[in-house]
């Protein structure tokens, strides 16, 4: 299989082209810009189109229009720009339109900094815009996963008629790694028999989520609630690394999951039963991963690049049956494997001789 050296952002862009994405609407913002640049160069060669919007709001609404016709469409941004897209995302979720969105998370709040961050976790996983909805959120931890998860994102979006988010950070976006340019997996997806593409030979269609009658609106809400509950049950994904016999556990996604793997190997070399759960879907949060270990694990270190956000979901998943502590860096800084291993040893008073 073809193997090439690509930046994480470029891997997302290449996967989008190979997923049949024909339209990209975006606006440049560091550290996500390589996505729009790569697509500007390569999407036209594949018969597609990149249109740079006047702003992030225009870009997400252009995605809205394109998705309404049944086309595969994507946009990408970074934290401050992602904030501007929230109105559009709420409308995409309400109108049940499949769009793939990328947020290359940079430090915040405010204008923030350009370094890697996970400070948008709440915004990305709890809705973000107004109203009661969720995005499916996929969190890659290396360039290959930027590629693979993007392909999966398009299929999930079409399967559920819902916007799907790839959430990564500037570290993953900018880092070059060899990746296999896998072909798009064959997946059976529902027909887009709802698309507004001209009513020749059929009844007119409308795509709208607006209701001025409360009874009608409640009906819509119940429909969305059922759909999101179904996704929550069916689509939880995670990676386990030495987790089955672990007494102590790291939980980290994206870059943190990657760093935690090194910490786990160091701990195992010391004879400590340490493992990792790396959430792949941040929503739905992989609570199923915690069910088998919640009565046996002695302590959990949640590794995050924020002031502690995913830790709330970890505590809920473990039903507070084990202590969960936060180990974090912020503002674009990354923890080392020693830093997070020390946090585990100190917080849980683990003597290194314990397991030897």
């Amino acid at each position, binding site marked *: 299989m073809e193997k090439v050296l690509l930046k994480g952002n470029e891997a997302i862009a290449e996967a989008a082209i190979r997923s049949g994405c024909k*339209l990209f609407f975006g606006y440049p913002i560091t550290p996500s810009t390589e996505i729009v640049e790569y697509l500007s160069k390569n999407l036209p060669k594949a018969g597609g189109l990149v249109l740079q919007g*006047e702003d992030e709001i225009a870009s997400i609404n252009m995605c809205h229009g394109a998705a309404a016709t049944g086309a595969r469409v994507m946009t990408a941004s970074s934290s401050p720009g992602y904030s501007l897209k929230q109105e559009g995302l709420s*409308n995409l979720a309400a109108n049940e339109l499949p769009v793939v969105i990328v947020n290359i998370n940079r430090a915040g709040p405010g204008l923030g900094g350009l370094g890697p961050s996970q400070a948008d976790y709440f915004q990305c996983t709890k809705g973000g815009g107004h109203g009661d909805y969720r995005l499916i959120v996929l969190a890659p931890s290396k360039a290959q996963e930027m590629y693979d998860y993007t392909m999966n994102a398009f299929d999930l979006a079409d399967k559920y008629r819902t916007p799907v988010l790839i959430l990564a950070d500037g570290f993953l976006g900018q880092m070059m790694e060899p990746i296999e340019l896998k072909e798009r997996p064959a997946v059976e997806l529902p027909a887009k028999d709802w698309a*507004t*593409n001209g*009513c020749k030979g059929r009844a007119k269609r409308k795509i709208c989520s607006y209701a001025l009658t409360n009874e009608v609106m409640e009906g819509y809400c119940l429909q969305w609630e059922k759909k999101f509950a179904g996704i929550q049950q069916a689509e939880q994904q995670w990676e386990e690394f030495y987790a089955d016999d672990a007494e102590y556990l790291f939980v980290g996604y994206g870059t943190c999951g990657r760093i935690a793997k090194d910490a786990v190997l160091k701990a195992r070399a010391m004879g400590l039963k340490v493992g990792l759960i790396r959430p792949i879907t941040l929503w739905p949060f992989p609570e199923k991963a915690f069910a088998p270990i919640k009565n046996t694990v002695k302590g959990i270190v949640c590794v995050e690049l924020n002031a502690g956000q995913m830790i709330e979901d970890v505590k809920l998943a473990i039903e507070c049956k084990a202590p969960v502590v936060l180990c974090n860096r912020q503002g674009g800084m990354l923890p080392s494997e020693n830093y997070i291993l020390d946090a585990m040893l100190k917080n849980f008073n683990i003597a290194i001789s314990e397991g030897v």
Partner: protein
Amino acid sequence: MEKVFGRTKGLTDVPFHYCPGCTHGIIHRLIGEVLEELDIIEDTIGVAPVGCTGFSLDFFSCDFVGAAHGRGQAVATGIKRALPDKIVFTIQGDGDIAAIGTAHAIHVAARGEKITSIMVNNALFGMTGGQMAPTTLAGQVTTTSPYGRDCAVVGTPIDLPKTIATLNGAVYVAAVSVDTPKNIMQAKKAIKKAFQVQQKGLGYALVSVLSTCPTNWGLSPVDSLKWLRENMMPVYQMGELKVAKEVEAL
């Protein structure tokens, strides 16, 4: 018996929800007739953002997409770029296109986006109950300008079509009114031309239609028409504001 008048095929049989005396219905009918006459009902996708035009989804016989407030032209851009051979139009109020949607209004014109926009200008936010819009006239009383629009504080009304006409990508810009039978005929001509411009792929076309809002103006339907003539027409430049060379031949 010979049938001399009927409902246009461009409209569904859903009754309009508009207030008595509001001229929205006339504008809808004109668009519906144009869709029928150009035989493009089945090839057209309409976009309606928030406002009194937001109910258009039910009234037209073509496919329709609802958009967030002000975002209709960005949504229409996405549709047109995905389906360049289809006809795409927006119908939006002045409180939408000339306020929260201004950035998109400017940039669809700048890009020469091959869509048609119909702006319904009634000089206020109608659906939310008559608040001041950027198009509200000097001294006009609304619920958020209860002492009359004070131009020293909030500036003077924006004549959006004039601004749009300065942009190269906008090849046809007209401002019309539906206050008299004669003006209704002229309005239809302008709307038809705006769709023909798109059929030929010539560029962006905007038609602003002055419209009454008896409910929020606090006037009878007849007095509203008089008020529109006496107050709005002198402020807003009327007629064909821009007919690019390539459009002249239509």
